[in-house]
């Protein structure tokens, strides 16, 4: 894990994609920074976003387990919240939540 964390740090120092020239491409397009995909802001695809009513939450963690993006984290107050940098707004967490904590609303920004 420490190694992965280092790689992620290294990946974040990589050139901006728009500045990459053909000379920067590693042999065969190999990616030598494992975890560099964490740079990709997949959240900008989103058309709906999750909202939470934590008064109903039992902290069962099903939303975290079902999230296909793996972007739901347990916060210090022990509630589970999606990271909007990565959340694609698929609504699976909302569908699976047994106590209906999560409501999807239209992304308007």
């Amino acid at each position, binding site marked *: 894990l420490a190694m992965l964390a280092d790689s992620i740090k290294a990946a974040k120092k990589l050139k901006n*994609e*728009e500045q*990459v*020239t*053909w*000379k*920067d*491409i*590693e*042999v*065969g*397009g*190999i*990616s*030598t920074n*494992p975890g560099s995909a964490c740079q990709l802001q997949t959240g900008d695809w989103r058309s709906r976003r999750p909202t939470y009513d934590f008064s109903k939450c039992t902290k069962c963690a099903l939303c975290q387990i079902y999230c296909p993006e793996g972007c739901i984290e347990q916060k210090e107050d022990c509630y589970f919240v999606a990271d909007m940098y990565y959340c694609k707004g698929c609504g699976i967490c909302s569908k699976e939540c047994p106590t209906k904590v999560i409501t999807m609303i239209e992304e308007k920004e």
Partner: protein
Amino acid sequence: VATRTGMEVSLAVSEAVKLANADVIAAYPITPQTHIVEHLAELVAQGELDAEYIPVESEHSALSACLGSSAAGARTFTATAGQGLELMHEVVYVASAMRLPIVMAVANRAVSSPLSVWGDHSDVMAVRDTGWIQIFVENGQEAIDQTICAFRMGEDRRVLLPVMVHLDGFHLSHMVEPMLFPDQAEVDAFLPPINYPLPLDPAKPVSMGDFAPPIVFTEAKWAQEINLEKSKEVILEVWHKFGERFGRNYKPVESYRCDDCDTLLMTMGSYSETAMMAIDKVREAGKKVGLLHLRLWRPFPYEELRQLAGKAKTIIVLDRAISMGMGGPVASEVRSALYPLEKKPKIVSFIGGLGGRDISPVDFETIINRGMEIAKTGSQREFEIFGVRE
């Protein structure tokens, strides 16, 4: 000391792979496969070659297994032909784009339909644009030599590309020829052990064959193209070193009796030796005709071709495949390579030898004479098919 032995050329290729000390061979006995992988299976089973032999369930899997083993840093070989090459088509592109130095012998054959297992260049032309180094051999000796050279070319750190060694199906692959087999010690001295720069290694994880969005795809392809173009320097260097050690010299384009020639015949593959006999005949009859033999198909040898062919007035190109709806692929590339010259030679395009049909020395004389006639009077067609019954 090299020993001279009579052997089927397919088996000789296997022996060359053994001399090159390949680590992994993945193959599938699709029809039409050759004796190359069959004999390699024997060599591995009998303990004569210390390699992993992976019998897979299709040609697509054969090359896929090769991707994995090459990515792990193993010296990797496979062989295919005709339909088999078509079935692995998707993976052929991947091997070169991932820069994996696999060596693959291809016994060039026709592709269905009608069903044919006989030789021509149709299978090759379908993989023309896949980014592999591609070398056409002329005879059995060259099949051995180029197989050994291919490993050194592909694995060179300045190259790191897969290499196809093309040998004409049946006309070469199934012929018994006398050939010189180099000593193991000599081959070991010529061919250093493989040392792939970024092999799969759990201690140093990398991801291969990544996703490339539009913003970097063009750059990735350009990097691949530049690398393939530059590989020619290394190819020439390897042939030079091979010549120094083994006394047999190879060039991207060979010329035979080309000095002072107005007309050149051009062939690729094993027909070149037959064509030489025809050249001798027509020269005896006082016609100034020479022969060009294209060995290096990719990267395309523009420079060498322009030097050798630039002074000719007519070049008669014999293709062994049709690009349907267009014509001869070799003729078309030769024409385009010579188009920037101020004095452009006329390119006369013939297609022949399809699906294993023989072209004899006498036939080549007919092709030369008809080609010279077309150069003078023109033809109603963009190309002619030699020997077709109308």
